[in-house]
């Protein structure tokens, strides 16, 4: 896939004339802006991009992107996007989805997309609630959550989207918080450049039905203490004063303070996003606050043949060795003549 890359693209080249209809204050606005900035920077022109979505607040995304787009049906965006990509591998295809859309009704498509490694970029807006249907618990809502459909508290154990993704053979796994523009830019650029399924979880605030769901991580005053920005090849150091680290005890991560107990930067776990063994990516995915800082950035980025490349390659390989003879096909192997 090689596109004409333009250096003069601006975010507004990816904006449509449609009135954006998310609630005022919704985290989706920041995500939309981040994606449009990332695409402008990437330089692939809008007509070479398709944006596909299912149903939910996040899934209105295609209407606001001046690319080709389909607003599909609930949970099925990965399947629709797969069809687009297999038909036209030259298109760059993005999927916008939510925690309900991709993990509940679309859970099956989600895991199979990841294992196939179709070259799609899938952005999952995780607000831990059903917004468009006005406030029911989602597959990422915490146990005990009180919603309109769980007035006595939810008894549903939630998914951890990233560990589900790693378990489903995902080759690229990343995460950012809607208000964190710097990490957003980094993760989106890497996802765009990745050849294969790039799965990005975005902590997104629904200020109407689940306001503050991510405040414990996203608020400026404690973000650096409660999240850890992963950098490939770098030791895992975090904290406002960069005085804490993560080290591995075998396969058990542990938080430590630099300078205490004789431990220093050299003891920290060095992040290897390209480790072909998914074990450590899984450990990272399972790290949650308050026990651990929550990882943001790129947890895993491991190249393997994408499904579209393999499928189209097989077609091309057969075409190069076998002539398409329609009459021969119709005749089959044992025809006879009636005079």
């Amino acid at each position, binding site marked *: 896939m090689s596109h004409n890359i333009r250096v003069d693209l601006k975010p507004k080249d990816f904006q449509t004339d449609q009135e954006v209809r998310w609630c005022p204050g919704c985290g989706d606005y920041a995500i939309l802006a981040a994606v449009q900035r990332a695409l402008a920077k990437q330089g692939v022109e809008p*007509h070479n991009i398709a944006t596909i979505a299912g149903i939910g607040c996040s899934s209105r995304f295609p209407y606001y992107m001046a690319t080709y*787009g389909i607003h599909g049906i609930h949970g099925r965006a990965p399947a*629709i996007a*797969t069809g687009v990509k297999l038909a036209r591998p030259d298109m760059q295809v993005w999927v916008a989805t939510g925690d309900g859309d991709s993990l509940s009704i679309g859970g099956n498509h989600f895991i199979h997309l990841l294992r196939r490694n179709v070259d799609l970029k899938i952005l999952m807006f995780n607000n831990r609630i059903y917004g468009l249907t006005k406030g029911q618990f989602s597959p990422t809502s915490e146990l005990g959550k009180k919603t309109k459909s769980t007035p006595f508290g939810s008894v549903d154990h939630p998914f951890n989207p990233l560990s589900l993704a790693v378990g489903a053979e995902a080759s690229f796994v990343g995460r950012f918080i809607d208000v964190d523009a710097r990490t957003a830019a980094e993760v989106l650029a890497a996802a765009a450049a990745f050849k294969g399924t790039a799965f990005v979880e975005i902590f997104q605030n629904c200020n109407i039905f689940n306001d503050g769901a991510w405040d414990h991580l996203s608020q400026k005053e404690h973000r650096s203490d409660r999240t850890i920005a992963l950098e490939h090849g770098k030791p895992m150091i975090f904290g406002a004063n960069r005085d804490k680290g993560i080290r591995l005890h075998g396969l058990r991560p542990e938080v430590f303070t630099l300078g205490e107990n004789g431990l220093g930067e050299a003891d920290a776990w060095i992040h290897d996003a390209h480790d072909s063994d998914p074990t450590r990516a899984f450990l990272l995915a399972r790290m949650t606050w308050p026990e651990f800082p929550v990882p943001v950035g790129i947890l895993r980025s491991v190249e393997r043949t994408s499904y579209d490349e393999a499928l189209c390659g097989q077609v091309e390989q057969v075409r190069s060795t076998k002539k398409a003879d329609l009459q021969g096909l119709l005749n089959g192997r044992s025809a006879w003549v009636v005079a």
Partner: protein
Amino acid sequence: MQSSPAASASASSSASGGASSKPTEVLESVVIRFAGDSGDGIQLTGGQFTAASAAAGNDTATFPDYPAEIRAPAGTLAGVSGFQLHFSSRDILTPGDRADVLVVMNPAALASNKKWLKGNGVLIANSDAFTVKNLAMAGYASNPLEDGSLADYQVFELDLSRLTGDALLGLEMTAKEVERCKNYFALGLVFWLFERDASMVEDEIKQKFGAKPMLLDANLRVFRAGWDYGENTELFQVRYRVPAAEDIAPGTYRSISGNEAVALGLIAAAHQAGLSLFLGSYPITPATDILHELAKHKEFGVKTFQAEDEIAAICAAIGASFANQLAVTTTSGPGIALKSEAMGLAVMTELPLVIIDVQRGGPSTGLPTKTEQSDLMQVLYGRNGESPLAVLAIRSPADAFDCAFEACRVAIKYRVPVVLLSDGAIANGAEPWKIPDASTLPTIDPNFLNSAEQLPGGKLLPYDRDPQTLARPWVYLGTKGLEHRIGGLEKWDKTGHISYDPQNHHHMTKVRQAKVEAIAQDIPAVEVVGPSSGDLLVVTWGSPWGSVRTAVKELQGAGKSVAHVHLRWINPMPRDLGEVLQRFGRVLVPEINNGQLVQVLSARYPRRFDRYNRIAGQPLTVAEVKQAMVELLPD
């Protein structure tokens, strides 16, 4: 067996199968049915006999009748697999109501197939398998070969297992391997009995077992032993000959199943449209062979995507259609149920899509390997909202190519999803198909919108319409300046933007309906076979075509005022159908369902309809539809 009126018994020897000392009787038509355990190679045996009959110039029609279980326990009723072949010196349209010859490999095969054997028919039974244990499994209290209960048939007992073993003496084979060769003994015998060309089977055995010299030798030996047995035994005193058919149109023919023909029709349509073919599919009986066939032909650029489920299969096809491929999804009734929401998306987005439903017995899992016509209402109405779909149906295996091609043509021209209905009997049944000349196939113009330059006002209107077809533009994905968004929400006419406007929704609902109705301008007028008016008109869709056409011709030959109309298109219907229906005293609609087309017709045309429905998982027989007609005719 139907004796040929022109021919009398003769004492010639076989032309192709080696000389014989026994006399030959000439017959016009024969129906033969093979039945045995699923593991006995019955479908293979039947297929080889069919190929040899077709090669000998007979018209043929087959009906494989097999269980859903791949290998149910040996000897049980559940495990019986059957294959019926009708071969004839005349043009035939059905696999035959009942068999002249029944070959059974065990008691269970006899128990479940005896009802298909004509009175005084020939029964060839593998007596070795009629053991106490097998008899008990088949529910026999006593051995029917010995208790006189088969007195109405001409019974030929063969100890097939022993004869097969004798033929293989000296080869180092296990008892199980020997047992697996016995279908070739039976095949050799019936090849002798019906003067079939043995070299075809011998060539096939050589091809199949070429890499395994011992099995090659074994199967050849057994096949020849079966042939020689016929020649040498005193059991069989006469051979039969069904001469080559003479009322078949000249041309090049091959034997083809409905599923194969559908696959070829799709490839041909994509080729003639200059499009790549994309199939999104999930395995389901009896539709899976279409996926198998298409997966073989990547040289035509065919992309087959075996999805994680039925929903993903159609959604990927919708994505591929948006990306300008000839997009197809194949399934059976339960799969249609799962795809319904996505079918609505295809209606809303007005994208070309071919949805193939190979119907089977329902509801729920129903009868996966048995045939039925019970998805008509589902494909017409089984979706939320006003969701009109174009629907056409295949009548026979040889009709499947044209129907698949037609479904693609209309989907592309009108930018609509089209449902193509097949059924289990068509899908697996086979008959000779006159191979079309590829150079004379019509071309299909995908008529892409692939430039922004000519647009009025420089702006794309994704839901602007061709005034004649009401088709919206099929935008070539990736064209600069034509970026647009579509989806399942209601659209503003022309702009395609989201709209909740009441008047607009009313208008768009009517437009989607009008678009399907507009297809009627593109389909032929009703063909009335028989008198243009009279006592009785029989209306069919799908696979009852063959039985009904045969019965109608027989009644016409007896001087009855009967005509037949077969509907290839069910939505829309031919524009003159209502007028034709008024010209007959009675109108009969036979279907393998509880009366679905008859309900559609009743709602649309103000007249009385009679119905004939049998929902037994089997094709309708000529005899039963003929009886239903006779009951409606004046004495």
